[in-house]
């Protein structure tokens, strides 16, 4: 099929043996690519009960049918593996040149098995793969690593993805960095890479990506670029970036504040929101092959760490390191962002863990004697930055923090699990579910743990017409959003242009046909989404997950939110169980959350 290379490259780091795995058209027709293909591969390649940090786990980098085709947002890839943070399914997305270079090298993806007996990195081109010594880069941060590897490639651009010290030290929320500032952030994919003694992957290809109808793609881009130019939403989003989201979550009362105790924070306004960040933008930036420049380079003009520069900060970082920690100094948030990028950690999980520790100190559940002298109080940016280093290098109490908020709360005990904000071990992102009840369901049923990318919380309940503090219709709402994003994440395009231009699924079906030559209907896409989500559920079921794991922290279920439009709201056990029942039913899963036999038959699983 055009658009695909028809094969994956597999390497076993233990033996250095490589092979090519054919991707037949039938596979694409059934699972599309990206998330969908990853679901099939992970299910087939990882034996049940595999330790995520063992040699038996696989680390899969996958592209999709639209990768590198000039369709908007098409330089994305997904890393699929079994998560060390949750013990279940993990898909973690990133932009990065490596996506396009993999296809140019002739591969739709890369499957990494085994464990090298010494630190190494992979160098891939159309001739194959080399396993190279990584002694000179092991121990270095992601920025240094990438700089050194790019120098070795000379003038020609290459795709480089690497881990920082956090990945090497198996911090459970270590990420994989690409193009310096882009991360496959969630679920600890960097720890899986570190456990394999793999520091980086460098890919450089020179083949053209085969397209069925390149003229049609250009024509579609012309039309959609025009739409973007005329869209008020796109203009706002490209000017302000994701910091604009902070204004909406604050207004709607779902901005996580003080470890998810409050839903608004006045002090964030004009400091760490769209207005505050905009004053520090140096230039706007687009990802490779995308005509929407929705990213930005920021250099801070004021604050304790003024003069520091980053691509970002994105909303999640502003929320998790800003309002959630009561830090209103943009330069401190940017510094945290830079440190996380360099050290190779997910800013969401890292911010969440620090917020939890701050609350433990506030409630006097821990003392500096128990934390090797590390004392972090709400609003203390310096201590927060020290904590990042401690987590990445697993120094002192940082060693325990690096296990994630679930393990940390289990160790601290004393009822701290009531405000350990996670699902299945994955830390909450920057949206308070008590102000948008559908988000509570969305977090709970997500196969990778508390996830904002499957059903973006403000979409329907703050910005849409769904009343936020009821459960009525929320299961259907969440399923609809999940399925829509499942298609985008399997075609493997960025959500952003799709949402802010906006581009309907019909438009992506047009791109798919122009790239592959195969028409695809919305009904087929819907069916694929159902199949993929059920297959991923089956992966987790195989690993022992069920309804008992689709649960929320005590705070979300039982404690009234303390301020804002949603003041006094909490989800409640009865409400939550009703949403779960309805969601399972819509999916064709039984009341325990296990896909029914007829559902598996229906989707050919």
């Amino acid at each position, binding site marked *: 099929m055009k658009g695909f290379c028809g094969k994956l490259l597999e390497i076993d780091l233990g033996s250095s043996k490589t092979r090519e795995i054919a991707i037949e058209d039938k596979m694409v027709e059934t699972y599309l690519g990206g998330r969908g293909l990853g679901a099939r591969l992970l299910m087939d390649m990882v034996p049940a009960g595999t330790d995520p940090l063992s040699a038996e786990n696989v680390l899969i980098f996958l592209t999709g049918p639209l990768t590198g085709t000039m369709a908007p947002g098409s330089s994305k890839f997904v890393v699929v593996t079994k998560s060390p943070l949750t013990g279940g399914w993990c898909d973690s997305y990133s932009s990065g040149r490596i996506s396009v270079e993999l296809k140019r090298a002739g591969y739709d993806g890369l499957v990494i098995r085994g464990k090298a007996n010494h630190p190494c990195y992979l160098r891939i081109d159309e001739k194959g793969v080399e396993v190279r010594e990584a002694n000179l880069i092991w121990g270095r941060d992601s920025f240094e690593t990438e700089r050194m590897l790019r120098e070795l490639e000379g003038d020609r651009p290459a795709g480089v993805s690497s881990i920082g010290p956090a990945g090497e030290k198996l911090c459970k929320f270590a990420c994989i960095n690409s193009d310096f500032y882009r991360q496959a952030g969630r679920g600890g994919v960097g720890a899986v890479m570190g456990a394999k003694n793999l520091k980086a992957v460098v890919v450089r290809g020179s083949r053209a990506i085969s397209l069925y109808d390149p003229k049609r793609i250009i024509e579609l881009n012309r039309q959609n670029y025009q739409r973007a130019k005329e869209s*008020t939403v796109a203009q*706002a989003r490209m000017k302000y970036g994701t910091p604009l989201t902070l204004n909406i979550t604050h207004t709607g009362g779902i901005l996580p504040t003080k470890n998810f105790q409050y839903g608004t924070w006045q002090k964030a*306004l004009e400091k760490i929101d769209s207005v505050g960040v905009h004053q520090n933008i140096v230039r706007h930036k687009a990802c490779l092959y995308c005509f929407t420049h929705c990213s930005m380079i920021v250099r801070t003009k004021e604050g304790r760490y003024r003069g520091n520069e980053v691509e970002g900060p994105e909303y999640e970082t502003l929320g998790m390191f800003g309002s959630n920690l009561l830090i209103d100094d943009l330069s401190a948030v940017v510094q945290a962002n830079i440190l996380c990028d360099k050290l190779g950690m997910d800013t969401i999980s890292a911010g969440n863990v620090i917020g939890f520790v701050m609350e433990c100190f506030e409630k006097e559940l821990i003392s500096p004697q128990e934390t090797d002298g590390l004392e972090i109080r709400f609003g203390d940016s310096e201590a927060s930055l020290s904590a990042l280093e401690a987590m990445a290098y697993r120094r002192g109490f940082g060693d325990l923090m690096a296990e994630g908020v679930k393990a940390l709360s289990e160790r601290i005990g004393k009822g701290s699990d009531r405000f350990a904000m996670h699902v299945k071990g994955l830390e909450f992102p920057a*949206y308070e579910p008590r102000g948008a009840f559908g988000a509570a369901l969305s977090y709970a049923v997500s196969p990778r743990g508390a996830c904002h990318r499957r059903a*973006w919380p403000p979409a329907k309940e*703050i910005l849409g017409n769904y009343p936020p503090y009821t459960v009525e219709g929320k299961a259907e709402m969440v399923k609809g959003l999940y399925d829509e994003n499942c298609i985008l994440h399997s075609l493997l395009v960025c959500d952003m242009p799709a949402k802010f231009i*906006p581009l309907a699924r019909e438009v992506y079906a047009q791109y798919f046909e122009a790239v592959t030559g195969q028409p695809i209907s919305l009904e087929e896409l819907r069916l694929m989404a159902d199949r993929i989500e059920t297959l991923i559920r089956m992966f987790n079921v195989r690993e022992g997950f069920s309804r008992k794991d689709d649960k929320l922290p005590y705070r979300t279920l039982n404690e009234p939110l303390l301020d804002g*439009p949603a003041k006094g709201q909490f989800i409640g056990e009865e409400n939550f169980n009703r949403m779960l029942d309805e969601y399972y039913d819509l999916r064709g899963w039984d009341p325990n959350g296990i896909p029914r036999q007829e559902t598996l038959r229906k989707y050919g699983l």
Partner: protein
Amino acid sequence: MGSKATLRSTHEKLKPMEIVLNVFGPETSLNQKISVEPETDSLRDVLRALSERTQGPWNRLIRPDLTLEKGCVILVNGRNILSLENLETKIQDGDEITLTVLVTGG
């Protein structure tokens, strides 16, 4: 009975009110306190009074006939008016009205 009588009676009783206006669009403004004298306490009349009173970034999101530009919504105290009473939503002194594009992305 009339709605007219009711309206007039409301109008007669209605005092000037101060609203807090946010605009999140290609131009953003926050926490702008504006005093208006609407005919009734409906959002429709508050917006009308506002449009007579002031120009600003919000004019890019809402047309003179009070219809919204594509991809824009109105929140009152953080709630989308589509899940309240739409343009008939009652506004009180000190309420926060937000005109916003459909923000997306984290």
